């Protein structure tokens, strides 16, 4: 025993962050950074939620004037932008950032400083967006910023500039996290964890990351073009100069549609992990399930035009995109049948995580059905830009991201904090959220059918929309109460929750073998795996390991270590055979400095373009400092 303590102490000395403010600013550990992402994105989630509540109050009755049309425009634009860019993507990436090294048996991610850099970029971009809203200059041309509305003639002021610069800047964070996840998943898996033994969640994170890499550049390019149109008079989207507003729509939706699936796929991964843990058996049709994620990833790049059915494109291309949009139902169907088959005949204990998963099934399938409806061109022409679309995409997005994330929150909270979340409060919060959600958004289908257009700050009396809108408003507050109870549950459990064992759910994947919460270096002894569910003795059929300490997967001498260097096993892409010792970067202030420098360029460009070269120059020196070889490398 003494030997193991010594080993743990050595590891801790190597991997622990410095104490104090310096240690906080230079922190690079994947769990610490991911936790910051969690807290920040939950904060932005609540701000965006409050924006929605204010809008719902304004719409509760016809012709109210609680807020002005200008404020309403800023609120719904910021609400959409924040929920997508400042909540959903960062939160899901943070789930990957926290869990991937634990699920694949690594000590950290492959570029630890890049994680820190991404977080600072995200924080600065998010604060910029919200500050601009509080100063009355928030984005105000909807989250998709269609030109000509969004050009400088029709929307003067800083709002759209905040959007274009903050989004371009923000996407840097999304992209570096994607790079980080792909390289980590490919090259740092535990010996024995060949590609076909990765947890399903890791597959979903891999697909999401590739989608981010191919989708985000389109929106960055589009927002830079829009920024230039607005600031220096280029003519990309100006018909008088030979430009075309439709170019904006194409570039935006080439990003915007995959974006929806970027949010969906990790949600499917979370659901798969929870279903398998509660069924106590492996995911049925593992290969088909992971292949369906890959298929959704590919298909999602071929159907952006279904957002543009009413834009007057040729029928031939519309028909192609209609067929592609409907085909997405096939891989989604495979995933749903896989979960049903996994749960079939088992007697799962319906605890809060599973409850949210069951809620997800209901909401997501309803959203999927309206999805097939709006994919059909004639139907789409009827409901385009009405509340029916608002209902549809809230069912899809809240269904695919928020329900799985709440499920994941309850599922992995013990791993992150070492405490169990309160079951009673969890269930109350679930029912409030679930009932509130349906009460808010189901009536919107009907107000949409009745012709209510989206993105309007008020409506006339006598159109038959009053009661449906009132229902939506009541529902929104019920849902808000659910979120509040969840937040209270989190805070209460951190303070005086029940301590958790390493594997409270009896799940089969590797992260449950690490202590709860895991030490900075994750593993005293590094794992070596020989199956998809290494914690279960009878692998595929999920009988629980009789000796709960999982010693059979942890090998003390599998990987010789330098005592004072941050090392983790580097393995081959396909079969995960040991090929090297990967040295990981340690704490550094430069990621923060690089993020600040690029912020000077990106945010500063709104004030004067001269700040762009200044910021880029500063960024150059920060990056050189960041990459400069550490002393022990000489």
């Amino acid at each position: 025993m003494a030997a193991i303590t010594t080993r743990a102490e050595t590891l801790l000395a190597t991997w622990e962050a410095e104490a104090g403010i310096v240690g906080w600013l230079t922190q690079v550990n994947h769990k610490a950074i991911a936790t910051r992402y969690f807290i920040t994105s939950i904060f932005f989630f609540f701000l965006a939620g409050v924006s929605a509540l204010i809008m719902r109050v304004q719409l509760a009755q016809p012709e109210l004037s609680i807020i002005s049309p200008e404020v309403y425009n800023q609120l719904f634009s910021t609400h959409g932008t924040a929920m997508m860019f400042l909540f959903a993507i960062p939160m899901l990436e943070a789930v990957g950032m926290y869990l991937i090294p634990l699920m694949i048996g690594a000590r950290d991610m492959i570029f630890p400083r890049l994680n820190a850099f991404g977080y600072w970029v995200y924080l600065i971009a998010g604060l910029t967006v919200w500050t601009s809203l509080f100063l009355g200059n928030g984005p105000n041309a909807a989250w998709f910023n269609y030109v000509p509305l969004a050009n400088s003639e029709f929307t003067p002021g800083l709002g759209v500039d905040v959007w274009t610069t903050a989004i371009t800047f923000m996407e840097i964070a999304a992209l570096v996290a994607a790079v980080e996840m792909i390289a980590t998943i490919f090259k740092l898996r535990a010996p024995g964890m060949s590609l076909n033994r990765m947890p399903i969640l890791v597959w979903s994170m891999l697909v999401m990351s590739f989608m981010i890499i191919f989708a985000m550049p389109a929106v960055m390019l589009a927002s830079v073009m829009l920024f230039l149109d607005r600031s220096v008079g280029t003519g990309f989207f100006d018909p008088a100069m030979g430009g075309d507003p439709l170019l904006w729509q194409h570039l935006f939706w080439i990003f915007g549609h995959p974006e929806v699936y970027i949010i969906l796929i990790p949600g499917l991964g979370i659901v798969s992990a929870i279903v398998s843990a509660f069924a106590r058996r492996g995911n049925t049709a593992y290969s088909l399930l992971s292949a369906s994620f890959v298929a959704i990833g590919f298909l999602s790049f071929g159907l952006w035009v279904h957002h543009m059915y009413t834009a007057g494109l040729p029928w031939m291309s519309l028909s192609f995109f209609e067929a592609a949009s409907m085909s997405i139902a096939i891989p989604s169907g495979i995933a749903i049948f896989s979960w049903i088959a996994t749960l079939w005949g088992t007697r799962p204990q319906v605890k809060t995580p599973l409850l949210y998963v069951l809620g997800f099934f209901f909401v997501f399938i309803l959203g999927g059905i309206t999805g097939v409806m709006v994919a059909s061109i004639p139907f789409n022409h009827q409901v385009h830009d009405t509340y029916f679309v608002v209902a549809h995409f809230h069912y899809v997005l809240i269904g695919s991201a928020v329900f799985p994330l709440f499920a994941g929150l309850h599922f992995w909270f013990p791993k992150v904090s070492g405490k169990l979340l309160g079951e009673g409060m969890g269930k109350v919060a679930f029912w409030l959220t679930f009932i509130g959600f349906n009460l808010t958004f189901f009536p919107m289908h009907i107000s949409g059918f009745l012709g209510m257009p989206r993105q309007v700050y008020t409506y006339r009396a006598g159109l038959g929309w009053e009661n449906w809108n009132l229902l939506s408003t009541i529902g929104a507050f019920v849902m808000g109460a659910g979120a509040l109870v969840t937040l209270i549950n989190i805070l209460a459990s951190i303070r005086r929750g029940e301590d958790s064992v390493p594997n409270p759910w009896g799940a089969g994947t590797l992260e449950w073998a690490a202590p709860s919460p895991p030490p900075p270096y994750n593993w005293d002894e590094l794992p070596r795996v020989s199956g998809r569910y290494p914690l279960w003795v009878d692998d595929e059929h999920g009988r629980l390991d009789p000796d709960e300490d999982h010693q059979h997967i942890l090998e003390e001498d599998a990987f010789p270590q330098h005592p004072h260097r941050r090392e983790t096993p580097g393995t081959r892409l396909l079969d995960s055979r040991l090929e090297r010792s990967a040295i990981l970067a340690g704490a550094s202030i430069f990621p923060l400095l690089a993020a600040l420098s690029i912020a000077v360029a990106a945010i500063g460009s709104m004030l004067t373009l001269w700040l762009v070269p200044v910021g880029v120059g500063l960024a150059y020196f920060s990056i050189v400092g960041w990459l400069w070889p550490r002393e022990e490398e000489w």
Partner: protein
Amino acid sequence: MATATRAGEGMPVFVSGQKSSMWWGIFLLMLIESAVFVGLISSYFYLFANASVWPPDETSTPSLGIPIIYTVALAASGVFALIGNRAITNGDVATMRWWRLAGIASLVVFLLLKAYEYATLDYLWDESAYTSILWVIAGFHSAHVLTVMLKEIPIQILAWKGFFTQERRSAIEGATMYWIFVVSWWFPLFATVYFFPNYV
């Protein structure tokens, strides 16, 4: 106690190619930037398809003289970079440094000629959608060339201080990959901006 052996003994630490973290970082960066280049070229042709005359009436077709010269300089810089990379693979730091310096010089030629070309154009970006996309493509690609050049400065300093060895060369390998990437993307861009309006 588990004796903590030096990692170098059991497992290689200095690796190259797909084994190294650097390779994957640069490779994925290349994918991201390729998506941007594809977006730029697609936008160019989208605007072309919308126009009745291309380039628009008041704008002259781009001339080929200077661009051909700097394209040769850029291609040469890529070759020099590769020769330098070959030298460090054999552990020859001095040869590596000289070839990379020659590469930097070629990049300077590229950038100066490019700056001259755009400074003497009779239109700016705010003339038409055509001039907008032209300037943005030139600016975006030239920024990459500048980045390649700036990346070489710390490499030269580190080489001069004796950091690089045959084993410890993954930084040079990564910089070379990126260099060749930036050179390679110029050819489709050249075909789009210069060849296409002149000959198609």
